[in-house]
């Protein structure tokens, strides 16, 4: 099961966080800082899976942005690793070359996309056009 998805930049600022199991606000900040430190300190040739307390972190770096997914033992690491990439490709498709700014300024939409892909800590949809369907509908309404 997926416990959380984080997007953080190299400065350690959280750009997106989604928890699939309630975590108190006070603990979130500490957890995010800790997780970021853990991933930032790793070199390119180190593996993308880190054991962290009772779960595993699967992370992937895109330019200055890190996407970190916390998963339980029962999750397939490589499939999560590629899920992250699929997510980024969806963002790329929607924002045409996504950047950190897109994510900051369109937080609601990024959330919609993520919620289409992962619900409740489980993968529900991996098909790009179906993931984007609700957003496309909204944008059409706004244009029209």
């Amino acid at each position, binding site marked *: 099961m997926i416990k959380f998805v984080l997007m953080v930049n190299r400065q350690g600022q959280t750009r997106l966080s989604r928890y699939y199991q309630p975590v108190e606000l006070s603990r979130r900040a500490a957890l995010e800082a800790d997780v970021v430190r853990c991933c930032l300190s790793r070199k390119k*040739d180190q593996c993308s899976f880190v054991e962290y307390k009772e779960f595993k972190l699967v992370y992937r770096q895109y330019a200055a942005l890190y996407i970190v997914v916390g998963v339980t033992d029962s999750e397939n*690491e490589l499939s999560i690793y590629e899920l992250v990439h699929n997510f980024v490709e969806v963002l790329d498709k929607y924002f045409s070359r996504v950047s950190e700014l897109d994510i900051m300024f369109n937080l609601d939409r990024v959330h919609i996309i993520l919620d289409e892909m992962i*619900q409740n800590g489980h993968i*529900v*949809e991996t098909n*790009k*056009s*179906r993931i984007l369907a609700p957003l496309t509908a909204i*944008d059409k*309404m706004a244009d029209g």
Partner: protein
Amino acid sequence: MPAVSKGDGMRGLAVFISDIRNCKSKEAEIKRINKELANIRSKFKGDKALDGYSKKKYVCKLLFIFLLGHDIDFGHMEAVNLLSSNKYTEKQIGYLFISVLVNSNSELIRLINNAIKNDLSSRNPTFMCLALHCIANVGSREMAEAFASEIPRILVAGDTMDSVKQSAALCLLRLYKTSPDLVLMGEWTSRVVHLLNDQHMGVVTAAISLITCLSQKNPDEFKTCVSLAVSRLSRIVSSASTDLQDYTYYFVPAPWLSCKLLRLLQCYPPPEDGAVKGRLVECLETILNKAQEPPKSKKVQHSNAKNAILFEAISLIIHYDSEPNLLVRACNQLGQFLQHRETNLRYLALESMCTLASSEFSHEAVKTHIETVINALKTERDVSVRQRAADLLYAMCDRSNAKQIVAEMLSYLETADYSIREEMVLKVAILAEKYAIDYSWYVDTILNLIRIAGDYVSEEVWYRVIQIVINRDDVQGYAAKTVFEALQAPACHENMVKVGGYILGEFGNLIAGDPRSSPLVQFNLLHSKFHLCSVPTRALLLSAYIKFINLFPETKATIQEVLRCDSQIRNSDVELQQRAVEYLKLSSIASTDVLATVLEEMPPFPERESSILAKLKKKKGPGAVSVTDLEDNKREGGELNGGGDRGPDTSAMAASNASTPSPSADLLGIRSAAPIGAAPTSAGSLLVDVFSEAGPAAPSAAVNDDGFLSSAPPSEDPAAPLSEADDLLNKFVCKNNGVLFENQLLQIGIKSEYRQNLGRMYLFYGNKTSVPFASFSTTVSCPGELQSQLNVQSKPVEPVVEGGAQIQQVLNIECLTDFSEAPLLNIKFRYGGALQNLTLKLPVTINKFFQPTEMASNDFFQRWKQLSQPQQEAQKIFKANHGMDTEVLKAKLLGLGMALLDNVDPNPENYVCAGVIQTKGQQVGCLLRLEPNAQAQMYRLTLRCSKDSVSRRLCELLAEQF
């Protein structure tokens, strides 16, 4: 400012975000945020009603602020208002805010539920999805109550849109996890399984998560999912890369779905149906074959997706552990990955190979990769990969490669990360002992371990090496020589001094012939370390010194000098002072004969650990010992030494007390009757089984020791008790009523009551067949010495039990004195023509005659101290056989018959009980203490009774109960 906001961008929001980005300092940012919060608050409180757009904008700002790590304590109401908007974006922000910020016990839930109800009945699929999503995210009890019956209907309804089905599946999963009692199985369950056949892949993907969870909880009810999953998997695996269109990811058809299907199959054993199994094996072979094909794309995404499926398939193969061919192929595939340039693959390959090593089919295949794995341990640049390599080496270790692996692990230990050293030390120690043929190698290894990583060597490890040296006379001389050499190092670890002190104190004479290690040289060497050591080590050294006086009379004067000096005899530490005083006195007044008896060489330690290791090997194959097993061993080591501070040191002390039988023997678990002093250090077989040596010497004791297990049925008995008789008996230790035995013919129920030393037991014999039992007779007997301990009277029963009927028998029981055996119940009857004959143990156990005793904390501990003779105490450390639920534990302890005392033990986790056992002849006071360790899933049980045989018996009985 970049105008990056998309769609119906909210300008105010964009400006705010830009402002935050432009803040130069944290203070400036906080200032800006506070300004914004004040602004939003005033807007929300203002007289002017806000339109949907503004509300959405402000709620969105709050979300952003929350994300920056600031608590948001208002705006919830506005978010709830947004839920009833008809505009999707407004509704969506409302729901997002709620699912991110509202916890399950909020008071707003009722309002939110109302909005959800409206959206669920709206028949607008996007609104329904948002509502389902929200239930799934919040998942509160109240929501479950409101919607648990509704969701399954939506999920399986024929006219539900695909996207709604997806959300409904995940929503139901959440409700099932948080409130399983509210999600009732029903007609929908079978239809849920058939979602695996849904033509829409997204629906299948979502449904599998739900089905996996349901199957784990109710495997039988969902068994049909296996064949459906196999056929779905087979269709995906055999499809061309373009067939599945949008579900194909970098030429790999539906990788995530495939992984989830393979994961679902891991909830079940291999399919029984031959056709299904054949199809599945075919799938797994195809997946393995594909790994060998040239890649369809050079992109890493392609190979990752392909390998994700491959690893999941290998997990399934390992889970089944029944197809040697597939296991070996899996192993070869992983072997290739071990040298792959992708670190991720190397990591995962090491990880799954570790589980593969435990299968008897692939253990040998795994071993062929030893060089690669050793190389990984040496060269990997990532500590987590090295850790996996170390784990794998441990798992693949067996007698053939133990020396090599232990050597590599030792050399790795010199540079290993601090975080994993202790675990490594334990692993090396376990491997060294487990696979030692040549014990000088074992001694070398452990001493090296102490030299390299002394700080990480836990007490268990050095206790263990001493026990082994004491028990094996062929290695004692070597050990003395080696430890003497090791102590030559100018700085050696304190653990080395402990081992050195102990071993030289016992076996220094074996090397004293060499002038380079003459008695005085040995003593001076040890004493040169003395002042740098902690108190416990110094205490141990003092014991070593007094042993020296016995071994080498020529050192007497020197040592007495040392003992007499103020820093010993007036040491501020009581323990040290006492030892110095006593040893000095002992050495001055005792004759050499007395001295020789008192300070005799330590008797061998009873060997009990090996039994656990043997069990472990049998269970899991020689290679696999996971971390939990390690814990076992660690614990077991502790138990061997009677736990905590009763190491060999205590035993050395005890020896100086001279009186037979040595109390240390009891601490270490030998029962009182075993002739400790008499047990000579006989040949090497001691390590294998000390008890079998002691057995013939003290047969009566041996029978007592083993309790039920070894009691040979007396000759007058018509049949030996059933093999499961002990288990049946154990079920009744903490309860008085229930079904004692049942087979296809006969059911035997029991009701019993006890008062003081008397009991009455009602036995109900039920004929489960339609044919009468003829010549039905029962006999109750008390074998052996039980005859004089327990008086059981029974009335004969009627000779015929009609089909379907039940007859009753009453037994009167009187406890004369304490006892360990159980009375036997023999039942004979004719069913059809055949004579049936079975013997059971009647669940009459000593604890049945308990009277609970309430007492206050002071009283308890006062009595506890009064019962301090070693043989009055029995202790056992054991792994929890059942869950460690507090209420269940309490119920069991109460069922035991003692009083469960609250607020007595300083540690509230512990349980203490008190009671008096009433026998005809005497009363036996008993105190019990049970210390659970939830983390390790272990218990320590201690019993102190005024009669030692009772302590032992209760301890045996109870250890089976928790």
